[in-house]
Protein backbone atom coordinates (compact mmCIF):
# COMPACT_ATOMS: atom_id res chain seq x y z
CA UNK A 1 0.00 0.00 0.00
CA UNK A 2 2.80 2.37 0.97
CA UNK A 3 6.48 1.96 0.25
CA UNK A 4 9.16 4.55 0.98
CA UNK A 5 12.85 4.15 0.24
CA UNK A 6 15.39 6.77 1.41
CA UNK A 7 12.91 9.61 1.14
CA UNK A 8 14.20 13.07 2.10
CA UNK A 9 12.52 16.44 1.76
CA UNK A 10 13.76 19.96 2.35
CA UNK A 11 12.30 23.43 2.46
CA UNK A 12 15.20 25.46 1.11
CA UNK A 13 18.27 24.35 3.03
CA UNK A 14 16.36 22.84 5.93
CA UNK A 15 15.78 19.09 5.68
CA UNK A 16 12.47 18.20 7.30
CA UNK A 17 12.42 14.53 6.26
CA UNK A 18 15.65 12.61 6.38
CA UNK A 19 16.20 9.30 4.64
CA UNK A 20 12.86 7.68 5.53
CA UNK A 21 12.28 4.06 4.59
CA UNK A 22 9.29 1.95 5.59
CA UNK A 23 6.45 -0.11 4.15
CA UNK A 24 2.78 -0.40 5.01
CA UNK A 25 0.69 -3.40 4.06
CA UNK A 26 -2.98 -3.14 3.01
CA UNK A 27 -5.38 -3.18 5.96
CA UNK A 28 -2.81 -2.01 8.52
CA UNK A 29 -3.48 0.64 11.17
CA UNK A 30 -0.37 2.84 11.46
CA UNK A 31 0.36 5.72 13.79
CA UNK A 32 2.96 8.26 12.77
CA UNK A 33 3.97 9.59 16.15
CA UNK A 34 6.09 12.68 16.71
CA UNK A 35 6.17 16.05 18.36
CA UNK A 36 5.29 19.29 16.60
CA UNK A 37 7.78 20.01 13.82
CA UNK A 38 8.90 16.40 13.51
CA UNK A 39 7.87 16.34 9.83
CA UNK A 40 4.54 14.46 10.13
CA UNK A 41 2.50 16.94 8.10
CA UNK A 42 5.20 17.21 5.43
CA UNK A 43 5.20 13.42 5.06
CA UNK A 44 1.41 13.31 4.78
CA UNK A 45 1.42 16.12 2.20
CA UNK A 46 4.02 14.20 0.24
CA UNK A 47 1.94 11.02 0.36
CA UNK A 48 -1.16 12.95 -0.74
CA UNK A 49 0.54 14.59 -3.72
CA UNK A 50 0.54 18.12 -2.28
CA UNK A 51 4.34 18.14 -2.35
CA UNK A 52 6.62 16.64 -4.97
CA UNK A 53 9.14 13.99 -4.12
CA UNK A 54 12.65 15.43 -4.03
CA UNK A 55 14.83 12.48 -3.05
CA UNK A 56 14.33 8.76 -2.76
CA UNK A 57 11.52 6.56 -4.06
CA UNK A 58 7.95 6.22 -2.86
CA UNK A 59 4.79 4.51 -4.02
CA UNK A 60 1.33 5.12 -2.61
CA UNK A 61 -1.62 2.89 -3.54
CA UNK A 62 0.20 1.88 -6.71
CA UNK A 63 1.21 5.43 -7.69
CA UNK A 64 4.91 6.08 -8.13
CA UNK A 65 5.41 9.48 -6.51
CA UNK A 66 8.61 10.13 -8.46
CA UNK A 67 6.59 10.00 -11.69
CA UNK A 68 3.52 11.75 -10.38
CA UNK A 69 2.62 14.67 -12.64
CA UNK A 70 -0.07 17.32 -12.18
CA UNK A 71 -2.65 15.33 -14.09
CA UNK A 72 -2.15 12.23 -11.96
CA UNK A 73 -2.54 13.96 -8.59
CA UNK A 74 -6.38 13.90 -8.71
CA UNK A 75 -6.26 10.16 -9.49
CA UNK A 76 -3.99 9.56 -6.50
CA UNK A 77 -6.37 11.56 -4.32
CA UNK A 78 -9.30 9.45 -5.45
CA UNK A 79 -7.48 6.39 -4.12
CA UNK A 80 -6.13 8.05 -0.98
CA UNK A 81 -8.39 10.15 1.26
CA UNK A 82 -7.22 12.63 3.84
CA UNK A 83 -8.63 14.10 7.05
CA UNK A 84 -7.11 17.20 8.58
CA UNK A 85 -7.14 18.63 12.07
CA UNK A 86 -8.85 21.77 10.76
CA UNK A 87 -11.68 19.71 9.17
CA UNK A 88 -11.69 21.52 5.80
CA UNK A 89 -15.43 21.22 5.35
CA UNK A 90 -17.39 23.83 3.38
CA UNK A 91 -19.27 25.86 6.00
CA UNK A 92 -22.02 27.09 3.69
CA UNK A 93 -22.81 23.69 2.23
CA UNK A 94 -24.94 21.15 4.05
CA UNK A 95 -23.61 17.97 5.62
CA UNK A 96 -25.16 16.03 2.73
CA UNK A 97 -23.48 18.26 0.11
CA UNK A 98 -20.09 18.07 1.83
CA UNK A 99 -20.19 14.28 2.00
CA UNK A 100 -21.39 14.00 -1.60
CA UNK A 101 -18.46 16.02 -2.99
CA UNK A 102 -15.92 13.20 -3.56
CA UNK A 103 -18.65 11.04 -5.10
CA UNK A 104 -19.64 13.81 -7.50
CA UNK A 105 -16.00 14.11 -8.48
CA UNK A 106 -15.92 10.39 -9.26
CA UNK A 107 -19.09 10.57 -11.33
CA UNK A 108 -21.11 8.27 -9.08
CA UNK A 109 -24.83 8.29 -10.03
CA UNK A 110 -27.10 10.48 -7.83
CA UNK A 111 -29.14 7.55 -6.50
CA UNK A 112 -25.99 5.85 -5.26
CA UNK A 113 -24.69 9.11 -3.78
CA UNK A 114 -27.93 9.44 -1.85
CA UNK A 115 -27.78 5.85 -0.60
CA UNK A 116 -24.12 6.00 0.45
CA UNK A 117 -24.52 9.42 2.11
CA UNK A 118 -27.46 8.18 4.18
CA UNK A 119 -25.55 5.05 5.17
CA UNK A 120 -22.36 6.83 6.25
CA UNK A 121 -24.36 9.45 8.16
CA UNK A 122 -26.10 6.69 10.09
CA UNK A 123 -22.74 5.08 10.96
CA UNK A 124 -21.30 8.41 12.11
CA UNK A 125 -24.51 9.51 13.80
CA UNK A 126 -24.98 12.49 11.54
CA UNK A 127 -28.36 11.41 10.16
CA UNK A 128 -30.24 14.07 12.08
CA UNK A 129 -27.97 16.84 10.79
CA UNK A 130 -27.79 16.03 7.09
CA UNK A 131 -29.57 19.11 5.81
CA UNK A 132 -27.85 21.58 8.10
CA UNK A 133 -25.07 23.80 6.78
CA UNK A 134 -21.76 22.75 8.35
CA UNK A 135 -21.23 26.14 9.97
CA UNK A 136 -24.04 25.26 12.37
CA UNK A 137 -22.37 22.05 13.57
CA UNK A 138 -20.10 21.59 16.58
CA UNK A 139 -16.37 20.87 16.12
CA UNK A 140 -16.88 17.15 16.74
CA UNK A 141 -19.70 16.99 14.22
CA UNK A 142 -17.65 18.84 11.62
CA UNK A 143 -14.79 16.39 12.16
CA UNK A 144 -17.20 13.51 11.63
CA UNK A 145 -18.38 15.14 8.40
CA UNK A 146 -14.74 15.34 7.27
CA UNK A 147 -14.27 11.64 8.11
CA UNK A 148 -17.53 10.69 6.38
CA UNK A 149 -16.38 12.57 3.29
CA UNK A 150 -13.02 10.78 3.41
CA UNK A 151 -14.35 7.24 3.78
CA UNK A 152 -17.59 7.37 1.79
CA UNK A 153 -15.74 6.36 -1.39
CA UNK A 154 -14.06 3.33 0.25
CA UNK A 155 -10.51 4.62 -0.23
CA UNK A 156 -7.64 2.16 -0.17
CA UNK A 157 -5.75 4.39 2.22
CA UNK A 158 -6.92 7.00 4.71
CA UNK A 159 -4.36 9.59 5.77
CA UNK A 160 -5.18 11.64 8.81
CA UNK A 161 -3.26 14.54 10.27
CA UNK A 162 -3.94 15.15 13.96
CA UNK A 163 -7.65 14.38 13.49
CA UNK A 164 -8.42 14.83 17.19
CA UNK A 165 -6.40 18.00 17.68
CA UNK A 166 -9.51 20.15 18.08
CA UNK A 167 -11.60 17.63 20.00
CA UNK A 168 -12.05 16.79 23.66
CA UNK A 169 -11.12 13.39 25.12
CA UNK A 170 -14.56 11.86 24.82
CA UNK A 171 -14.94 12.85 21.16
CA UNK A 172 -11.37 11.73 20.43
CA UNK A 173 -12.13 8.29 21.85
CA UNK A 174 -15.30 8.05 19.80
CA UNK A 175 -13.43 9.13 16.69
CA UNK A 176 -10.80 6.45 17.17
CA UNK A 177 -13.56 3.86 17.45
CA UNK A 178 -14.81 5.07 14.06
CA UNK A 179 -11.33 4.76 12.54
CA UNK A 180 -11.01 1.23 13.96
CA UNK A 181 -14.39 0.36 12.47
CA UNK A 182 -13.31 1.47 8.98
CA UNK A 183 -9.99 -0.30 9.41
CA UNK A 184 -11.88 -3.52 10.13
CA UNK A 185 -13.72 -3.05 6.83
CA UNK A 186 -10.34 -3.06 5.05
CA UNK A 187 -9.28 0.60 4.82
CA UNK A 188 -5.61 1.15 5.60
CA UNK A 189 -5.30 3.92 8.19
CA UNK A 190 -2.21 6.11 8.43
CA UNK A 191 -2.69 8.52 11.27
CA UNK A 192 -0.26 11.26 12.32
CA UNK A 193 -0.47 12.34 15.95
CA UNK A 194 1.52 13.71 18.85
CA UNK A 195 -0.82 12.10 21.40
CA UNK A 196 0.23 8.86 23.15
CA UNK A 197 -3.30 8.52 24.45
CA UNK A 198 -4.62 7.99 20.92
CA UNK A 199 -2.10 5.22 20.30
CA UNK A 200 -3.22 3.48 23.49
CA UNK A 201 -6.77 3.47 22.14
CA UNK A 202 -5.78 1.19 19.27
CA UNK A 203 -3.94 -1.79 20.72
CA UNK A 204 -1.96 -3.73 18.14
CA UNK A 205 -1.50 -0.78 15.81
CA UNK A 206 1.96 -0.22 14.36
CA UNK A 207 3.70 2.98 15.45
CA UNK A 208 6.34 4.84 13.49
CA UNK A 209 8.15 7.41 15.59
CA UNK A 210 9.37 10.45 13.74
CA UNK A 211 11.87 12.78 15.37
CA UNK A 212 13.28 15.82 13.56
CA UNK A 213 12.54 14.22 10.21
CA UNK A 214 14.16 10.87 11.03
CA UNK A 215 12.41 7.58 11.64
CA UNK A 216 13.67 6.82 15.14
CA UNK A 217 11.88 3.63 15.97
CA UNK A 218 9.12 1.34 14.82
CA UNK A 219 7.03 -0.64 17.24
CA UNK A 220 3.82 -2.61 17.47
Amino acid at each position, binding site marked *: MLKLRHVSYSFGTQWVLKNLSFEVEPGEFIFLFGSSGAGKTTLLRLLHGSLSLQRGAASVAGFDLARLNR*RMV*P*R*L*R*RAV*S*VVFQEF*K*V*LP*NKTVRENIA*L*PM*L*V*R*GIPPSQIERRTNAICRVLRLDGRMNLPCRRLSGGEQQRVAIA*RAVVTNPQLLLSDEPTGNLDEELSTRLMEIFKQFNQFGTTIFLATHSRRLIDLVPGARVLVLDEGKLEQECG
Partner: protein
Amino acid sequence: MNRIAFLLSKGVRDLGVNKWEQAVTLVALTLLLFLGLMFILVVFNVSQQLMSRQGEISFEIYWESSENLDEVRKQWDWLEESKFVQSLATYTPGKVLDTLEEGLGGYDLGWLESKNPLPPTAVVTMEVPRKSPKEAVRDFVREIEGKSGVDRVSLDSKELRKASMWTSLSEKVFYPSLAGIIFLVAIIMGNTFKLTLYSKHEEVEVLRLVGAGRWFIQLPLFVGAIVQALIGGGLALGLLRIAQNGLNQILDTPPLFLELSFLPPLHVAAFFGVLVLVAVVSSWVAIRDY
Protein backbone atom coordinates in the same frame (compact mmCIF):
# COMPACT_ATOMS: atom_id res chain seq x y z
CA MET B 1 -22.51 13.70 -20.76
CA ASN B 2 -24.46 13.86 -17.49
CA ARG B 3 -21.37 15.07 -15.68
CA ILE B 4 -20.80 17.83 -18.21
CA ALA B 5 -24.45 18.88 -17.90
CA PHE B 6 -24.04 18.76 -14.12
CA LEU B 7 -20.92 20.93 -14.22
CA LEU B 8 -22.49 23.40 -16.65
CA SER B 9 -25.55 23.77 -14.45
CA LYS B 10 -23.29 23.97 -11.38
CA GLY B 11 -21.56 26.97 -12.97
CA VAL B 12 -24.91 28.74 -13.25
CA ARG B 13 -26.17 27.63 -9.82
CA ASP B 14 -22.93 28.72 -8.14
CA LEU B 15 -23.67 32.29 -9.19
CA GLY B 16 -26.25 32.29 -6.42
CA VAL B 17 -23.87 30.99 -3.74
CA ASN B 18 -21.81 34.07 -2.87
CA LYS B 19 -24.53 36.54 -3.77
CA TRP B 20 -22.77 39.72 -2.70
CA GLU B 21 -19.49 38.94 -4.45
CA GLN B 22 -21.35 37.94 -7.59
CA ALA B 23 -23.54 41.05 -7.47
CA VAL B 24 -20.51 43.33 -7.09
CA THR B 25 -18.78 41.54 -9.97
CA LEU B 26 -21.88 41.95 -12.14
CA VAL B 27 -22.12 45.66 -11.35
CA ALA B 28 -18.41 46.12 -12.11
CA LEU B 29 -18.72 44.21 -15.39
CA THR B 30 -21.85 46.09 -16.41
CA LEU B 31 -20.27 49.48 -15.77
CA LEU B 32 -17.06 48.47 -17.50
CA LEU B 33 -18.94 47.21 -20.56
CA PHE B 34 -21.20 50.26 -20.52
CA LEU B 35 -18.17 52.58 -20.60
CA GLY B 36 -16.65 50.51 -23.39
CA LEU B 37 -19.91 50.57 -25.37
CA MET B 38 -20.31 54.30 -24.77
CA PHE B 39 -16.88 54.90 -26.20
CA ILE B 40 -17.65 52.70 -29.20
CA LEU B 41 -20.97 54.50 -29.72
CA VAL B 42 -19.26 57.89 -29.77
CA VAL B 43 -16.45 56.74 -32.07
CA PHE B 44 -18.99 54.99 -34.31
CA ASN B 45 -21.09 58.15 -34.63
CA VAL B 46 -18.09 60.38 -35.24
CA SER B 47 -16.85 57.94 -37.84
CA GLN B 48 -20.27 57.86 -39.52
CA GLN B 49 -20.36 61.66 -39.63
CA LEU B 50 -16.86 61.88 -41.07
CA MET B 51 -17.64 59.28 -43.70
CA SER B 52 -20.90 60.90 -44.73
CA ARG B 53 -19.37 64.39 -45.01
CA GLN B 54 -15.79 63.78 -45.96
CA GLY B 55 -15.49 60.33 -47.45
CA GLU B 56 -16.44 61.37 -50.96
CA ILE B 57 -14.90 63.33 -53.82
CA SER B 58 -16.25 65.25 -56.83
CA PHE B 59 -14.64 65.82 -60.19
CA GLU B 60 -15.65 67.03 -63.65
CA ILE B 61 -15.39 65.19 -66.93
CA TYR B 62 -15.07 67.10 -70.20
CA TRP B 63 -15.71 65.44 -73.54
CA GLU B 64 -14.48 66.76 -76.85
CA SER B 65 -17.07 69.13 -78.28
CA SER B 66 -17.04 67.18 -81.54
CA GLU B 67 -17.99 63.91 -79.79
CA ASN B 68 -21.28 62.26 -80.77
CA LEU B 69 -23.82 62.97 -78.01
CA ASP B 70 -25.33 59.45 -78.20
CA GLU B 71 -21.91 57.97 -77.46
CA VAL B 72 -21.49 60.39 -74.52
CA ARG B 73 -24.93 59.39 -73.14
CA LYS B 74 -23.87 55.72 -73.22
CA GLN B 75 -20.86 56.67 -71.09
CA TRP B 76 -23.11 58.57 -68.65
CA ASP B 77 -25.23 55.41 -68.28
CA TRP B 78 -22.06 53.43 -67.60
CA LEU B 79 -21.00 56.00 -64.99
CA GLU B 80 -24.37 55.85 -63.25
CA GLU B 81 -24.10 52.11 -62.92
CA SER B 82 -20.63 52.25 -61.36
CA LYS B 83 -20.63 51.12 -57.71
CA PHE B 84 -18.48 54.06 -56.59
CA VAL B 85 -20.62 56.83 -58.10
CA GLN B 86 -22.88 58.49 -55.56
CA SER B 87 -24.38 61.10 -57.87
CA LEU B 88 -23.98 62.24 -61.43
CA ALA B 89 -24.91 65.60 -62.90
CA THR B 90 -24.72 65.70 -66.71
CA TYR B 91 -24.67 68.66 -69.04
CA THR B 92 -25.22 68.57 -72.80
CA PRO B 93 -23.76 71.56 -74.71
CA GLY B 94 -27.31 72.93 -75.14
CA LYS B 95 -28.03 72.63 -71.42
CA VAL B 96 -24.77 74.38 -70.59
CA LEU B 97 -25.71 77.19 -72.95
CA ASP B 98 -29.12 77.57 -71.26
CA THR B 99 -27.42 77.67 -67.86
CA LEU B 100 -25.01 80.26 -69.15
CA GLU B 101 -27.87 82.38 -70.49
CA GLU B 102 -29.58 82.20 -67.10
CA GLY B 103 -26.33 83.13 -65.40
CA LEU B 104 -25.99 86.15 -67.67
CA GLY B 105 -29.40 87.44 -66.69
CA GLY B 106 -31.29 86.19 -69.74
CA TYR B 107 -28.74 87.38 -72.28
CA ASP B 108 -29.58 85.75 -75.61
CA LEU B 109 -26.90 83.34 -76.77
CA GLY B 110 -29.15 81.69 -79.35
CA TRP B 111 -26.72 82.68 -82.13
CA LEU B 112 -24.27 80.13 -80.70
CA GLU B 113 -26.65 77.17 -80.94
CA SER B 114 -25.57 76.12 -84.47
CA LYS B 115 -21.85 76.36 -83.66
CA ASN B 116 -21.91 75.67 -79.90
CA PRO B 117 -18.24 75.41 -78.77
CA LEU B 118 -19.13 74.06 -75.32
CA PRO B 119 -18.37 70.36 -74.67
CA PRO B 120 -20.62 67.82 -72.97
CA THR B 121 -19.65 67.67 -69.28
CA ALA B 122 -20.49 65.73 -66.18
CA VAL B 123 -19.90 66.25 -62.47
CA VAL B 124 -19.29 62.97 -60.68
CA THR B 125 -19.48 62.55 -56.93
CA MET B 126 -17.89 59.29 -55.90
CA GLU B 127 -17.45 57.45 -52.64
CA VAL B 128 -13.80 57.11 -51.68
CA PRO B 129 -13.16 53.39 -51.17
CA ARG B 130 -11.70 52.45 -47.77
CA LYS B 131 -9.09 50.16 -49.25
CA SER B 132 -6.23 52.00 -51.04
CA PRO B 133 -8.41 55.12 -51.54
CA LYS B 134 -5.98 57.16 -53.67
CA GLU B 135 -5.13 54.30 -55.99
CA ALA B 136 -8.78 53.29 -56.38
CA VAL B 137 -9.86 56.84 -57.34
CA ARG B 138 -6.95 57.26 -59.74
CA ASP B 139 -7.71 53.88 -61.38
CA PHE B 140 -11.32 54.92 -61.84
CA VAL B 141 -10.31 58.27 -63.33
CA ARG B 142 -7.85 56.53 -65.66
CA GLU B 143 -10.64 54.21 -66.82
CA ILE B 144 -12.83 57.25 -67.60
CA GLU B 145 -9.98 58.97 -69.43
CA GLY B 146 -9.63 55.87 -71.58
CA LYS B 147 -13.20 56.14 -72.88
CA SER B 148 -13.66 57.43 -76.40
CA GLY B 149 -14.12 61.17 -76.73
CA VAL B 150 -13.14 62.03 -73.18
CA ASP B 151 -10.99 65.12 -73.37
CA ARG B 152 -9.95 65.40 -69.73
CA VAL B 153 -10.96 64.73 -66.17
CA SER B 154 -10.50 67.52 -63.71
CA LEU B 155 -9.56 65.96 -60.40
CA ASP B 156 -8.25 68.14 -57.63
CA SER B 157 -5.41 66.17 -56.05
CA LYS B 158 -5.73 68.20 -52.83
CA GLU B 159 -9.36 67.16 -52.53
CA LEU B 160 -8.39 63.55 -53.17
CA ARG B 161 -5.74 63.72 -50.44
CA LYS B 162 -8.24 65.24 -48.02
CA ALA B 163 -10.94 62.67 -48.74
CA SER B 164 -8.62 59.72 -48.47
CA MET B 165 -7.16 61.20 -45.29
CA TRP B 166 -10.59 61.33 -43.64
CA THR B 167 -11.27 57.80 -44.77
CA SER B 168 -8.02 56.42 -43.48
CA LEU B 169 -8.29 58.56 -40.32
CA SER B 170 -11.67 57.05 -39.55
CA GLU B 171 -10.17 53.58 -40.13
CA LYS B 172 -7.13 54.46 -38.07
CA VAL B 173 -9.21 55.77 -35.17
CA PHE B 174 -12.17 53.38 -35.08
CA TYR B 175 -10.50 49.98 -35.31
CA PRO B 176 -7.51 50.70 -33.06
CA SER B 177 -9.89 52.23 -30.49
CA LEU B 178 -12.04 49.14 -30.71
CA ALA B 179 -9.03 46.86 -30.29
CA GLY B 180 -7.81 48.97 -27.37
CA ILE B 181 -11.20 48.86 -25.67
CA ILE B 182 -11.48 45.09 -26.14
CA PHE B 183 -7.99 44.61 -24.71
CA LEU B 184 -8.75 46.86 -21.73
CA VAL B 185 -12.09 45.14 -21.10
CA ALA B 186 -10.39 41.73 -21.28
CA ILE B 187 -7.78 42.71 -18.71
CA ILE B 188 -10.27 44.25 -16.30
CA MET B 189 -12.72 41.36 -16.77
CA GLY B 190 -9.97 38.85 -16.08
CA ASN B 191 -8.98 40.66 -12.90
CA THR B 192 -12.62 40.99 -11.82
CA PHE B 193 -13.10 37.24 -12.28
CA LYS B 194 -9.89 36.61 -10.38
CA LEU B 195 -11.08 38.71 -7.45
CA THR B 196 -14.39 36.84 -7.40
CA LEU B 197 -12.53 33.55 -7.31
CA TYR B 198 -11.03 34.43 -3.92
CA SER B 199 -14.46 33.82 -2.44
CA LYS B 200 -14.34 30.30 -3.92
CA HIS B 201 -10.80 29.57 -2.80
CA GLU B 202 -11.94 27.37 0.08
CA GLU B 203 -14.24 25.30 -2.12
CA VAL B 204 -11.54 24.85 -4.73
CA GLU B 205 -9.10 23.68 -2.04
CA VAL B 206 -11.60 21.10 -0.75
CA LEU B 207 -12.42 19.94 -4.29
CA ARG B 208 -8.73 19.36 -4.89
CA LEU B 209 -8.42 17.42 -1.66
CA VAL B 210 -11.16 15.02 -2.70
CA GLY B 211 -9.55 14.37 -6.08
CA ALA B 212 -11.31 16.78 -8.44
CA GLY B 213 -9.51 17.19 -11.74
CA ARG B 214 -8.83 20.56 -13.32
CA TRP B 215 -11.85 20.53 -15.60
CA PHE B 216 -14.17 19.58 -12.73
CA ILE B 217 -13.01 22.72 -10.90
CA GLN B 218 -12.61 25.00 -13.89
CA LEU B 219 -15.65 24.25 -16.04
CA PRO B 220 -18.24 25.66 -13.58
CA LEU B 221 -16.03 28.72 -12.97
CA PHE B 222 -15.73 29.16 -16.71
CA VAL B 223 -19.48 28.86 -17.30
CA GLY B 224 -20.21 31.22 -14.43
CA ALA B 225 -17.83 33.83 -15.87
CA ILE B 226 -19.40 33.63 -19.34
CA VAL B 227 -22.96 33.81 -17.99
CA GLN B 228 -21.98 36.79 -15.88
CA ALA B 229 -20.35 38.51 -18.86
CA LEU B 230 -23.47 37.95 -20.98
CA ILE B 231 -25.79 39.28 -18.28
CA GLY B 232 -23.44 42.25 -17.80
CA GLY B 233 -23.36 42.81 -21.56
CA GLY B 234 -27.17 42.80 -21.76
CA LEU B 235 -27.46 45.24 -18.87
CA ALA B 236 -24.75 47.45 -20.39
CA LEU B 237 -26.63 47.58 -23.71
CA GLY B 238 -29.79 48.56 -21.83
CA LEU B 239 -27.88 51.33 -20.07
CA LEU B 240 -26.40 52.45 -23.39
CA ARG B 241 -29.87 52.71 -24.90
CA ILE B 242 -31.02 54.85 -21.97
CA ALA B 243 -27.88 57.01 -22.20
CA GLN B 244 -28.30 57.42 -25.98
CA ASN B 245 -31.91 58.56 -25.55
CA GLY B 246 -30.87 60.95 -22.80
CA LEU B 247 -28.02 62.39 -24.87
CA ASN B 248 -30.25 62.80 -27.91
CA GLN B 249 -32.70 64.81 -25.85
CA ILE B 250 -29.86 67.18 -24.94
CA LEU B 251 -27.93 67.24 -28.23
CA ASP B 252 -30.71 67.01 -30.82
CA THR B 253 -31.96 70.51 -30.09
CA PRO B 254 -31.22 73.89 -31.66
CA PRO B 255 -28.55 74.98 -32.46
CA LEU B 256 -26.72 71.64 -32.27
CA PHE B 257 -29.11 69.18 -33.94
CA LEU B 258 -26.71 66.34 -33.25
CA GLU B 259 -28.30 62.92 -33.26
CA LEU B 260 -26.48 59.90 -31.93
CA SER B 261 -27.54 56.71 -33.68
CA PHE B 262 -27.61 53.47 -31.71
CA LEU B 263 -25.25 50.69 -32.70
CA PRO B 264 -26.69 48.70 -35.65
CA PRO B 265 -27.87 45.09 -34.99
CA LEU B 266 -24.78 43.70 -36.67
CA HIS B 267 -22.56 45.66 -34.27
CA VAL B 268 -24.64 44.47 -31.30
CA ALA B 269 -24.32 40.85 -32.48
CA ALA B 270 -20.58 41.37 -32.96
CA PHE B 271 -20.42 42.88 -29.46
CA PHE B 272 -21.91 39.74 -27.90
CA GLY B 273 -19.68 37.51 -30.02
CA VAL B 274 -16.57 39.41 -28.97
CA LEU B 275 -17.83 39.54 -25.39
CA VAL B 276 -18.13 35.75 -25.22
CA LEU B 277 -14.67 35.42 -26.73
CA VAL B 278 -13.19 37.95 -24.30
CA ALA B 279 -14.99 36.29 -21.37
CA VAL B 280 -13.63 32.89 -22.42
CA VAL B 281 -10.07 34.18 -22.75
CA SER B 282 -10.05 36.37 -19.65
CA SER B 283 -11.75 33.79 -17.43
CA TRP B 284 -9.38 31.12 -18.68
CA VAL B 285 -6.44 33.37 -17.78
CA ALA B 286 -8.03 34.00 -14.37
CA ILE B 287 -8.76 30.38 -13.51
CA ARG B 288 -5.91 28.54 -15.20
CA ASP B 289 -4.02 28.28 -11.89
CA TYR B 290 -7.00 26.77 -10.08
